[in-house]
C-alpha cells in the first residue's frame, strides 16, 4: 500500500490534532482564528481528524460556541459560509468554561480534552493558542505544566504553544515571559506569532529577492539610496485604550512588526529555507542595528500623539478625547525613526520607518529607493530631476509590488515621465488571498517555524528599543502632535528632509 503514496505530494498537516484556544470566546478567536480555521477546512488543509476546543470565562456550551463561531465566520471570513462545509466543521468545535488563576482551573479542560480526544480518536497532539492578555501568559503556562498537559521529553504526541504579541512590556518582562514558557516548552515547541509575517507579500519578500536575478544585485549600499517602511493605521485607539495607553506605538508596532520587516528586507541570503537558517539571518540584522542612545534619540526618533482632525472628510476626536485614555497621557500614537544597519551590505543606507494611528489610510509598504542617475543626458535639467527608481512592496491593502521607472513620453518632443510596473496579487492570481492567520496556523500544525519569532530575535528587538524607551521616560519635552488624518507631525517631515529626502506618499 505504500506504493499508493509514492510520488504523491505530502499532505498538509496530516497529524490529527487538538487545537485549544485560551481566550476562545474572545475577539481574536471570533474575528480571526475561527474564520481562519474554517477557511483551512474549506481548502482541505485541516488534518482529517481535528478538534477545536475553545476555553474561557464564558459559560457557553458547545452549541453556544458553534453559534459564536458561525457568527464570526459569517462576518469576518474571506469566503462566505458554505452550509455543507459548516456542518462538518461545526462538529469539531467544543467549549470548556475555565478561568486561569483559580484552583484546579484546568481540571475541567483536561477532563473534556480526554473525552473529546477519545471520542474522535485523536492521539493527543495539542496546540495551545494563548489568545489572552499578556498578563495571563505566565499563569497559563504554569498551569499547563502543573496539570501535566505538556511533556517536553517526547515528540509524539506533540505539544506546541502559540503566543500572541506583545511578548513583554520591556526587555526584562520579555525575558521573564520567555523564561516561564521555556521552563515548560522547548524552543522548538514555541510559536511566537506576528501576523504580519503571515501576509503573502511579506512572505514574497524572500521570493522577490532570491527567486529573481534582477533585484538582489542591487540590494546594497552601492545602489540603494534609502529604504522606507510605513505601517499606517486609519483607526484610532478604539476599544484598546486600556492596553494601548500602556504600550504606545514603539512597543505595539516598531518592536515587533516593523523590526521584523526590516530584518526580512535586509537579511543576507540564507543557505537554505530551513526555519532556523532564515531566523539566524534575521537575527543578524537585528544585531547589526546601530543603537540609538542618549541624545541621538532626539535627533533620530520622532514620537507624537494625534489630535482631533478629519478622516475621509469627517471629524474624529483626538487621542486624549478617546474613551479610556487618561487626559494627561503622553503615550505616543506615532513614531518615525531613522536607523542604520552597520554591516557591509547596508553601510550608510538610512532606513526610515514610521507607524501611527489615525493616519490618512490603512496602508503598509516597504519601498526601496535606488540612487538617482547622474545629472547628465535625460537628467541634465536641474529644475526637473528625474525620479529615482523605487521598488515598493505593498503589504496591505491591495497586496503586490510596483517598480517605478522612467519612460519616454510618446511623441516627437519626448520628455520623461515616472511610470509604474505594477503587480497586484488580487488581479494576477485571482480569488481571495488567504488571511495571514490561515498560513500561520497551518504552519504550526505542520511544525514549520520559519514565520515565527525566535526568542533571541524578540529579545534582540527589545534590546534595541530599550534605550529609546529609557530616554523618553526621562524627558519632559513637549510631545509633538498631529491632526488625525495627516501623515504625522512636522517633526517627522523634518527628520527625513534633513537628509535631502522625503516620505514617499502612500
Amino acid at each position, binding site marked *: 500500500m505504500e506504493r499508493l503514496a509514492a510520488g504523491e505530494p505530502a499532505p498538509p498537516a496530516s497529524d490529527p490534532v487538538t487545537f485549544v484556544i485560551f481566550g476562545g470566546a474572545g475577539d481574536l478567536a471570533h474575528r480571526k482564528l475561527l474564520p481562519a480555521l474554517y477557511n483551512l477546512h474549506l481548502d482541505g488543509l485541516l488534518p482529517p481528524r481535528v478538534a477545536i476546543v475553545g476555553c474561557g470565562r464564558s459559560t457557553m456550551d458547545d452549541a453556544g460556541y458553534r453559534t459564536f463561531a458561525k457568527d464570526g465566520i459569517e462576518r469576518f471570513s474571506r469566503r462566505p459560509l458554505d452550509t455543507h462545509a459548516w456542518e462538518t466543521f461545526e462538529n469539531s468545535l467544543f467549549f470548556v468554561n475555565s478561568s486561569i488563576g483559580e484552583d484546579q482551573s484546568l481540571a475541567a479542560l483536561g477532563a473534556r480534552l480526554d473525552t473529546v480526544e477519545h471520542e474522535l480518536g485523536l492521539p493527543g497532539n495539542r496546540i495551545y493558542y494563548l489568545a489572552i492578555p499578556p498578563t495571563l501568559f505566565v499563569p497559563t503556562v504554569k498551569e499547563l505544566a502543573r496539570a501535566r498537559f505538556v511533556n517536553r521529553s517526547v515528540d509524539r504526541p506533540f505539544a506546541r504553544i502559540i503566543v500572541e504579541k506583545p511578548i513583554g512590556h520591556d526587555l526584562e518582562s520579555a525575558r521573564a515571559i520567555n523564561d516561564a514558557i521555556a521552563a515548560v516548552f522547548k524552543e522548538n515547541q514555541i510559536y511566537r506569532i506576528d501576523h504580519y509575517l503571515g501576509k503573502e507579500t511579506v512572505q514574497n519578500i524572500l521570493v522577490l529577492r532570491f527567486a529573481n536575478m534582477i533585484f538582489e544585485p542591487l540590494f546594497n549600499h552601492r545602489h540603494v539610496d534609502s529604504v522606507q517602511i510605513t505601517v499606517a493605521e*486609519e483607526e484610532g485607539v478604539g476599544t484598546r485604550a486600556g492596553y494601548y495607553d500602556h504600550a504606545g506605538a514603539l512597543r505595539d508596532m516598531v518592536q515587533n512588526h516593523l523590526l521584523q520587516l526590516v530584518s526580512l528586507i535586509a537579511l543576507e541570503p540564507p543557505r537554505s529555507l530551513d526555519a532556523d537558517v532564515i531566523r539566524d539571518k534575521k537575527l543578524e540584522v537585528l544585531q547589526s542595528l546601530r543603537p540609538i542612545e542618549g541624545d541621538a534619540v532626539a535627533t533620530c526618533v520622532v514620537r507624537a500623539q494625534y489630535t482631533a*482632525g*478629519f*478622516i*475621509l*472628510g*469627517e*471629524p474624529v476626536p483626538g487621542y486624549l478625547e478617546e474613551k479610556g485614555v487618561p487626559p494627561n497621557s503622553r503615550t505616543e500614537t506615532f513614531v518615525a525613526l531613522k536607523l542604520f544597519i552597520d554591516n557591509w551590505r547596508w553601510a550608510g543606507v538610512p532606513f526610515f520607518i514610521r507607524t501611527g494611528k489615525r493616519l*490618512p*489610510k490603512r*496602508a503598509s*509598504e516597504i519601498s526601496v529607493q535606488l540612487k538617482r542617475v547622474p545629472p547628465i543626458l535625460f537628467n541634465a*535639467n536641474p*529644475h*526637473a530631476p528625474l525620479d529615482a527608481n*523605487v521598488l*515598493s512592496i505593498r503589504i496591505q*491593502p*491591495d497586496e503586490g509590488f*510596483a517598480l*517605478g521607472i522612467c519612460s519616454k*513620453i510618446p511623441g516627437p518632443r519626448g*520628455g520623461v*515621465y*515616472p*511610470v*509604474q510596473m505594477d503587480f497586484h496579487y*488580487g*488581479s494576477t492570481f485571482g480569488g481571495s488571498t488567504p488571511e495571514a492567520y490561515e498560513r500561520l496556523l497551518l504552519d504550526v500544525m505542520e511544525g514549520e517555524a520559519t514565520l515565527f519569532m525566535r526568542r533571541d530575535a524578540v529579545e534582540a528587538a527589545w534590546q534595541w528599543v530599550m534605550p529609546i524607551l529609557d530616554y523618553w521616560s526621562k524627558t519632559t519635552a513637549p510631545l509633538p502632535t498631529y491632526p488625525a*488624518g*495627516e*501623515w504625522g507631525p512636522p517633526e517627522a517631515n523634518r527628520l527625513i528632509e534633513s537628509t535631502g529626502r522625503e516620505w*514617499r*506618499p*502612500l
Partner: protein
Amino acid sequence: MAAAVIERVWRASSPATIERDLSDLWRDLAAKGPIARAIMANLVIVRAARLERRAGVAIDAVASQHPSRVIIIDHDSSGGPCEVRNARVGVVTFAAAGTGRYGIEQIAVRSACADESIPSLIRRLARGALPISVWWAEDLSQVPPRASIVEMGRQLVYDSRQWSDVRKGVIALEPWSHLDLADVNWRRLAAIRRAVILAAAVDNGEWHPAGMRIAHRPADRALAWLLAGWLASRLNWSAGALPAMEELPPEGDTVVELSVGRGADTISVRSDGRHVVVEHYSRPRSVIGIPQEGEADAIAAELHSLSHDARLHDALSALHRHFSAA
C-alpha cells in the same frame, strides 16, 4: 487626440468602501473581456458643487490621454451639516487603435464638510506611488485654490485664459512658485514665443518696453500679459516696465500682436490662432504654424510634463513684480 469612449459605468459607493467597490467594478468589466487598467497619475479636481457641470465636460477626454485615477470632489461649502455623501465610483472604457480596450477609474465624492476636511479625502483616495496633479478647473483669479489642496499635488494645472482678472490670478499663484505650475494658456503662447525669438534676430538692437506694444483680443488678455511677463523676464526689464497693452475689437481675427519699433521699421509678430506671422520690410515674412489641439489635448499634454517650467515661473514673477509695483 482623445480615444473613443466605449462605455461609462458608475456605481454608488461610500467613502469607506470605495477601493473595494472599484475592485469589484474592474472585476466585472474584466469578465466581459480583456481590459487594461490604465493609470499613470492621480488627477484631483476640486470643484464648488455649483460649478460642476462646466468642469465635467473634458474630464473623460483628458483622462483618456493621461490615464489617471480621477478624484472629483464636489465641495458644498454652503454650511449644512458635515457629511460626505453621494460617493460614486466609475470606470470609463476607451478603445484606441492598436491598444485594445483600456479603462480609467473615477471617484466622485460630494462633501459638505469644512474646507480643511478636503485634504483628508484626497490623502485617502489618491494612489500613493503615483504623482498627484491638481487640476484647478475654475477661474482661480476669482476662486483661489485652497493651499491645503494645492500643496498635496506635485503639479497645479490651470488655464489662465479663464481669468477675469489677470492681476488677481498672478497674485493668487505666488505662494506656489515652488510647485510645477502648468498653464494651458502658456502652452498656447509657445509658437508666439518662437516667433518673437525669430523677430529678435531681425533687429540686433535692445528692445525696450517703451518702444513696444501688445494688442490682444478681449478673451486673450491673459495671453498678452504672459507674453509681456515673458519679455520682461528674458530681457531683464525693471519691475514696473512693460509694453503698452491694447485691447482689440472682439470680431477681428488677431489673437495677439506684438509690435516693436515705429513706422516702416516696425517688426510685427501676429497670431491669428492658426499661425504666427513675423513681418518686417527687410525680410520675407516668416510663418510658424500653431498646433491645433482641443482643450482636453492641451491639458493632457501639460499633465504629461511634470517638469518645473522655469520660463513660466520667471514670467509670472515679472508680472507679480509689475502688479506689486503698481
